[in-house]
């Protein structure tokens, strides 16, 4: 549903159609401001909802999708990860942190020569699997890795 909303908004463009949606109470003005942002997927409280929001179905485990991250993070506030897809025609890579309150962390669309590879730093509330989903030619490929989050410092 959220995926279709995004498409709808893109298709509707500016002006009358949007105003009609707002008037009909389908959309709040704030949502229109962030129209491009996949609210449903990002606000989902479980990984399944996030995947659904992204329109992921039938994702296959793939060695062509890789995630580089330390097995153990010294601090959960900043966990560096590098994700990459070697699947030809990869257009999009998404990152889901399964145990975070809102698991979808980011979704990147690549075009015009951008390599399907990105480095980003994530917050992790606790030890969790990080799931990476690549989209290529309408199909989904996935891999995951567990990162342990440790307690650090004097703790006071």
């Amino acid at each position, binding site marked *: 549903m959220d995926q279709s909303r995004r498409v709808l908004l893109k298709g509707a463009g500016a002006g009358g159609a949007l105003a009609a949606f707002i008037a009909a109470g389908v959309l709040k003005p704030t949502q229109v401001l962030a129209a491009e942002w996949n609210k449903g997927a990002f606000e989902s409280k479980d990984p399944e909802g996030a995947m659904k929001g992204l329109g992921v179905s039938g994702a296959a485990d793939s060695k062509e999708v890789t995630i*580089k*991250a*330390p*097995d*153990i*993070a*010294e*601090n959960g*506030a*900043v*966990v*560096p990860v*590098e994700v990459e897809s070697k699947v030809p025609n990869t257009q999009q890579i998404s990152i889901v942190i399964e145990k975070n309150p809102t698991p979808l962390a980011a979704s990147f669309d690549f075009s015009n020569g951008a390599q399907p590879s990105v*480095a980003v*730093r994530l917050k992790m509330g606790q030890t969790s699997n990080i799931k990476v989903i690549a989209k290529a030619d309408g199909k989904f490929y996935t891999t995951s890795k567990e990162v342990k989050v*440790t*307690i*650090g*410092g*004097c*703790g*006071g």
Partner: protein
Amino acid sequence: MKFKLQAAAALFALPLALTALAQQSITDKDAKDATIQEIERYREMLADGNPAELYEARGEELWKTKRGPKNASLEKCDLGLGAGVVKGAYAQMPRYFADVDKVQDLESRLLTCMETLQGYKAEEFTKQPFGSEDNKSDLEALTAYVVTQSKGVTMNAPMKHPKEKEAYEIGKRIFFYRAGPYDFACATCHAENGRRIRLQDLPNLTTHNGAKLGYGTWPAYRVSQGEFRTMQWRMNDCYRQQRFPEPGFGSDTVTALLTYLAATAAGAPYQGPGIKR
């Protein structure tokens, strides 16, 4: 993977009576080494991309902007190498400044310049010297700018003036001074090699190598706080964890400690600003 290997090793090892013990110690050692290795990997991955650069950029702007009651920039500030010389200045601090007749660390010196050149009152900045998201600290940003201009420069705080020598000697004694409800001194955590709190290495700050690693990579961006932190902050928070009362910002006590650390690190290149847990 590792478990399988260990299980296989256990199967083939003889005599059986010893196996359990041997396996136990191997497992412990492996687990420990693997943990340390992964923490090092974590730190490596963070090293490229230090948000301290954002603070540095803001600091440079502040340094060059005309501000304060006297509407002046800090470009004439003398950090010890002459008015306006920033490059390499931090690597030779703390040091004695004749105009105030005392030893100052970078942050105390910045306050002096903000008072004399810009006409600010130091208290405006020392009331809340450590920044947070909704209360950004100009001092932290300025510090980020100045220390970055010493990256790679050999640390060499002068130890010539009697007050510099005295600050070093007093700082050393303060470092070993045990007190408070936990009986801690700085030395409790920072006077032995190869120790850590949780997974955080504790540099032995009484040795050159330790001071090079500890003192020489601060100030730093702290990922756990999402802020750039200075030496004044580092000393302040160590004393908090030491269960001491709070040391005054830019006080002689903190300057003395920093003088002791800087002298111990002298001769090594400054490698900050760092990025830390």
